């Protein structure tokens, strides 16, 4: 086991080091000077999926690619682009998968419809039950 770990670390460490031999993108680890714009960028970044480490948002991830995505988002926000336009730009390239904020589409509408249907059914059932009690 120790041997395996040693071999793995031999393979992976140079990788991580080599990727970092290029300085990170300008706004990967630097916030925008305007706090309002930074807040806008941050709100968007927490809802974008890191494509390298798929369970993290790009705001959470230290992957170099997530840094590049943060830098893009911040620069576009600073240039006056709307957060939803940036999200749409990414969705155009990676599909809905890149966004953590679900959209209503031909495939996802049941997710939004089923809770409403269940609520409606529950309301009907309750009304039937309590209605009968009152009439009795």
């Amino acid at each position, binding site marked *: 086991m120790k041997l395996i770990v040693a071999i793995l670390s031999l393979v992976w460490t*140079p*990788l991580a080091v*080599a990727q970092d*031999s*290029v300085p990170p993108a300008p706004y990967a680890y630097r916030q925008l000077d305007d706090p309002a714009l930074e807040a806008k960028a941050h709100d968007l970044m927490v809802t974008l999926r890191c494509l390298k480490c798929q369970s993290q948002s790009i705001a959470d991830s230290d992957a170099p*690619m997530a840094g590049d995505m943060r830098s*893009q988002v911040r620069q576009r926000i600073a240039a006056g682009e709307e957060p939803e336009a940036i999200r749409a730009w990414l969705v155009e*390239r990676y*599909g809905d998968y890149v966004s953590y904020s679900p959209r209503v589409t031909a495939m996802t509408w049941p997710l939004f419809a089923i809770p409403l249907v269940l609520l409606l059914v529950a309301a009907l059932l309750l009304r039937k039950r309590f209605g009968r009690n009152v009439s009795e």
Partner: protein
Amino acid sequence: MTGATSKGPRWALWLPLIVFAAFVVLVLFGLFRPADREVQSAMIGKPLPEFALEPAVAERPGLSSADFRGEGPRLLNVFASWCIPCRIEAPQLDALSKAGVEIHGVAIRDTREDVEDFLSQYGNPFARIGKDDLSEVQLGIGSSGVPETFVVDANGIIRYQHIGVIRAEDMDLIMAELRKAGA
């Protein structure tokens, strides 16, 4: 009829259990089916976005979207010297280039020395190599890792995305995709 059964048929009593069992089956299915974690680009069939990259090495020119116009198709290979699988695909890229396929490289977050070392060690199948330190082109074409290879036709339209290493057994597939794109 008794009060208990007057509300509905007897089988309705089992309905919640059946729904629950169906849910368990669904969860098990999702757990044991080998899931596809690859992120497909949504740019297939769309034009290559506009870009212009600086040269990554001295002996090859840089790469811009205009280099993909006219007399295609071409391959766009996203690679990096720090990417170990990229070494495995080098012989296949070499063979493609010897077969007359024009291959353009996009080097992700790489230094000139590292790319030069990589090319001298594993061969240089590229006509042009652009330096993409900010993953701009990678994000622009919907690629999420290295290596990835895109077939781009003579009009600059992305026709096919190959995620991961081009293995020896993928060569027929790549050649077929190139033919489909007009080779």
